[in-house]
């Protein structure tokens, strides 16, 4: 059986494959896989341009797939919550504040990411939503504020390389250029 470390790289390679697929489709190249009991149960990549919905990040795509799947199998919210608590996320770039919050709400077990996200990162860069520092009294496991373990820097250079190639080719769907905006302020 492959070592723990080998496995981590194997899963991150799959996440990078997803990111490459995003790049090929003119999307910001971020990809992820979700692993339950050592098996990939979902994968996702950015679809913000295609959907014109800037919240369709790789993590959200994979999560929605899982929720739908488990719901189809007749699982209750409590059972779904239990399944998420066994899940690991491998994502090429640090989850943004939105995704980090979502992962905490779902109560996933652990996240591994490639490069840091200096602008939006919710797992240490801007906010630290993965650390559970609840001052509020909470009742019962399933309803309490949850943190998750986060490991950074897995194949970060590969992730950065993809992002760089995307921004060099230019985001065809980017808003208006930034510079004139600043001049107007």
């Amino acid at each position, binding site marked *: 059986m492959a070592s723990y470390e080998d496995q981590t790289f194997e899963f991150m390679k799959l996440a990078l494959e997803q990111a490459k697929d995003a790049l090929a489709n*003119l999307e910001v190249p971020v990809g992820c896989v979700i692993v339950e009991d050592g098996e990939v149960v979902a994968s996702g990549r950015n679809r*913000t*341009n*295609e*959907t*014109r*919905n*800037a*919240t369709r990040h790789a993590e*959200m795509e994979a*999560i*929605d797939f899982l*929720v739908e799947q488990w*719901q189809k199998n007749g699982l*209750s*919210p*409590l059972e*779904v*919550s239990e399944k998420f608590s066994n899940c690991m996320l491998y994502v090429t770039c640090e989850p*943004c*504040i*939105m*995704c*980090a*919050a*979502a992962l*905490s*709400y*779902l*109560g996933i077990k652990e996240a591994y990411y490639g490069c840091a996200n*200096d*602008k*939006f990162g*919710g797992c240490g860069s*801007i*906010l630290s*939503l993965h650390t559970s520092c609840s001052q*509020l*009294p*909470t009742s*019962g496991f*399933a*309803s*309490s*504020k*949850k943190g998750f373990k986060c490991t950074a820097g897995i194949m970060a250079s590969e992730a950065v390389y993809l992002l760089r190639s995307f921004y060099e080719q230019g985001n*065809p*769907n980017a*808003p*208006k*250029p930034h*510079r*004139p*905006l600043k*001049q*107007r*302020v």
Partner: protein
Amino acid sequence: MNRATGGTARRMKNKDEDTESVSPQIIHIPEKPPFLPHLQPTVKVHAAVIEPKDANTLVRKLNQIAPLENLRHVKRVQKKCIGEGKLQLCLLLSTVENDGEVDALPYEILELVKSYQLSTYITKVCKYAATSKEEWDEQCKLWPTSYHPPTYNISGITGFTEEESQSVFNFMRHAIDLATSCVGQVVNAAVIVDPSTKQVIASACDGVISSASPANEVSKEGSCSDYPENLNSSNLENQQTSLLDSSIGEFERVISNVACLHPWRWAVQSLSPSCGCWHPLRHAAIVAIEHSSARDRQLFPDYKLNGEDSIKEDCTLSPSKRQKIMDSDFQSNDRSSESVRPYLCTGCDIYLAWEPCAMCAMALVHQRVRRIFFSFPNSNAGALGSVHRLQGERSLNHHYAVFRVVLPEEVLRNKVVDAKIAGCG
């Protein structure tokens, strides 16, 4: 009526007066936490009394070896009158780290301390630059700072005309009506509005539990320009009465399904459904964004990612010129909306009954919403001032303005909400 500039003072005053009839208010939630002028946060610094003749040399040397990176508003030297017309100069050496041990000062500063035989002491300076004259006056009592009154143009961000205010109140009533449109429970609701046409772009309720989404809809184009004015308010009033009649414990139960208030509680939600579509992350704002992007795809189906048609033509213009054209197109009401496809929710406002959680607040950054209006603060998980303050995170690539809208008929209800939140804090 221009009520949107104040901070805590007006809000607190309002709380004292809320037994009287209170006119609706729009309260700006600023980028940094509001502090009473005499309660501004401070940081500890090393300082030392110096000889006036050494001041220039020491300031120059210190600015080189230990510039005050995060305290740019703080002056290096404090002048004190010590009686009989004598002045004493104190010099700020550096911020205090590692429990304030003088030995922990950087080597270069220690050298200065030795060669000028300075005796150091620890004092406090204000952490953030003053945003008002009152704050500045208080700051200077501790240690002198500089103050730059805001020079940016606040029109369109704050400063609501009477007409704009009325429109804001109407849309907020609409959002609260949606939030209370289910019998026996309250959820969060979101209404995305294009303020240039006063048109509802999309609206949604929490879809975390299946039975809680009666009013999710993508608005059909042109059908809702005067929607808020036509609202049937009986629903709201009924809810209002029943909410006010209920005890605080009852109220707590009634609002326990508001997704942004309890985002971790989805698995044990009181109305546990066995059927239908529930989703732990389908908070009202997320669903409304989804609807607005569906509307975008529906209205502009032929838009190509690589930008054939109009986008290509535009590209021959300079970026700034293109910018101006897009802006003017977007703002003018008489053009058909087909003429320009807006980028995401640029220029749009969103109305939420409750202050959004971190997930929703960040989603609204991503979708480039211009202004957020909410009615009830969310001390459990709110990300626009209560727990986090995303509008003040400078590294984000987009910033919206945030307002709390207080409607008069909710004053009593606010009390119940406040009591409830205080009770679990």
